[in-house]
């Protein structure tokens, strides 16, 4: 039972981060049909900024959080104005824009290398990391905070999408951008919101996961790939399906590593995802998108 709960919580923690990246990817995809290959870099910048502001400059937690948010939001605007808008204006297809976001990711890593260097830095943890027991389960505050943030962001996304008129506009753009434009929805703003909201989600995920992953500028790529997988596994069309996909990947990864073969856990996960895509080409919960074709 102890082993199970430790595995479950570490799986849920990693899965929450994959899910949050997947949710971010899916929100942007819904607004403009582009996969943002730099999404993991937002997590990385969140982690590294937390180190910069909390450890290097020794600022208090609220100030550091606000500054970190400022950094990732500025980064989102840079992505939109320097990569997305110029490419869109030139009529580039979505996959070319995806390669553009990859260029942005490489540039971000290059900048981060200049600021933080290639070595792994220790990340200050906001919450205590000592193990504690909740009923029969063993966990710690940092893990609970990440899972809590996952649930909170999921709720917030649901609220925005289904309980506000702005959310209605986002969903309309997702269904058909042209018709949405004809109805007076400014799709540029929807896209900007998607970029900014996703950056916030991923940046905060970065602040929280930092102490568990370790602060290194190369963590972004792996997170982008896992988040991408989460989104594809669930189905790109819905942010909630993407989040569920992330949880599934995280828990499966932890369970295979714990009870099966820890060495081959990662290849096995990729194999399972490949098999699922053979059987369900639009992801496990992706009927929505399949029906639209």
């Amino acid at each position, binding site marked *: 039972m102890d082993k199970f709960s430790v595995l479950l919580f570490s799986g849920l923690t990693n899965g929450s981060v994959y899910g949050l990246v997947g949710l971010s990817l899916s929100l942007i995809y819904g607004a403009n*049909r582009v996969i943002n290959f730099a999404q993991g870099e937002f997590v990385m910048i969140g982690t590294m900024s937390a180190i910069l502001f909390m450890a290097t400059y020794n600022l208090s937690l609220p100030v550091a959080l606000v500054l970190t948010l400022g950094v990732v939001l500025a980064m989102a605007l840079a992505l939109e104005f320097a990569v997305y808008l*110029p490419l869109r204006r030139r009529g580039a297809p979505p996959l070319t824009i995806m390669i553009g976001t990859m*260029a*942005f990711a490489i540039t971000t890593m*290059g900048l981060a290398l*200049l600021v933080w260097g290639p070595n792994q830095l220790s990340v200050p943890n906001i919450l205590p990391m000592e193990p504690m027991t909740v009923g029969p389960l063993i966990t710690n505050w940092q893990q609970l905070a990440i899972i809590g943030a996952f649930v909170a962001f999921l709720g917030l996304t649901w609220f925005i999408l289904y309980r506000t008129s702005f959310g209605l506009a986002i969903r309309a753009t997702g269904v058909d951008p042209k018709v949405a434009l004809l109805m007076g929805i400014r799709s540029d703003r929807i896209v900007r919101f998607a970029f900014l909201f996703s950056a916030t989600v991923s940046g905060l995920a970065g602040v929280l996961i930092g102490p568990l992953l370790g602060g290194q500028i190369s963590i972004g790529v792996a997170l982008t*790939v896992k988040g991408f997988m989460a989104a594809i596994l669930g189905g*790109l069309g819905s942010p909630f399906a993407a989040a569920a996909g992330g949880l599934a990947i995280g828990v499966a990864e932890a369970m295979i590593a714990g009870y099966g073969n820890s060495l081959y856990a990662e290849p096995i996960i990729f*194999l399972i995802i490949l098999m699922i895509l*053979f059987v369900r080409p639009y992801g496990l919960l992706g009927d929505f998108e399949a029906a639209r074709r």
Partner: protein
Amino acid sequence: MRSMFRNGNLAIVLIVVAALILPALLSSGYQLRMVSIIWVFALLAMGFNLLYGITGQISMAQQAFFAIGAYGFAMLQARLGWSPFAALPAAVLIVAGVAAVIGLPLLRLRTHYLAMATLAFSLMMVGLTNRWVEFTGGSAGIQIPTITMGDWSMSRAGLYYTLVIVAAIGLVIHNFIISGHLGRAMQAVRDDETGAESLGVNVTAVKLRVFVLAAVYAAVGGIGFGLVSRQVNPSFGEFPVIVSLLTIAVVGGLGTRFGPVIGAIVVVLAPQALARFGELETLIYGLCLGVFLIFLPNGLSGVMERWGTRLFRSRPPARQPVAKNVVEGGAR
């Protein structure tokens, strides 16, 4: 059409002549190694160009086929004691077989789903090569001996000339396919699958053929890279290779005839100049990729074609070859 064809052939002859003279101008073995790698990456990029630039099917498994080709070549020699002349075609056949087997189910997927699935395949392969130490040699990899036959053994320069010839043959086939019947069918598949199908194009067959062909190009490139590096290790299949490949495709020009070669020349040689910038290298790499994507969407090849059009007025204006309408129903 005929004159364009002849112009294309003239360009290939010029490239080959220049490439064959080049070693006389180089001073060190390191430089020879660098120019050999140009042709390796040109081969890899030709396959990707056929698959993504012309047919519009993205694959993030090219580096996996690159690695499988090199591993097959190395392991058939090291584990089974085959001669390199038997191991080479066998390794290429293995890759073609693997590509056909995974291509058939995967090519039902489109755009981002296809990208993800192929990425999952290649990550799985890299994971295996890293972990299955007793079979693949783990992260240390496997040595690849120099090709020998009797007393004769292939020198670095000999390897370079062989690579130039193989790449030239690859380029001729690449250009022949683009201008031929299959090329038209591929472009039709890229622009509108349903439309292509209604015109009598067997979409599944075209996709699968190009997927296997691109894998074969990658495998030949991988074997070449193994011979140049004298070993194979898991880094052959890792992320930096696909980033280089994408950069070559974008810098050279997607869907153009000479884009892969021009892109490979620039992308292999540019980091040599950038190495002087030390830590700035990654940053400049990313910025260049972005700048090319935005300001020169048809790559250097597109720029050259424009100059060519200006010089020889008789040639038709350059088409817009970048994959369009890959996703239907997208915002446009």
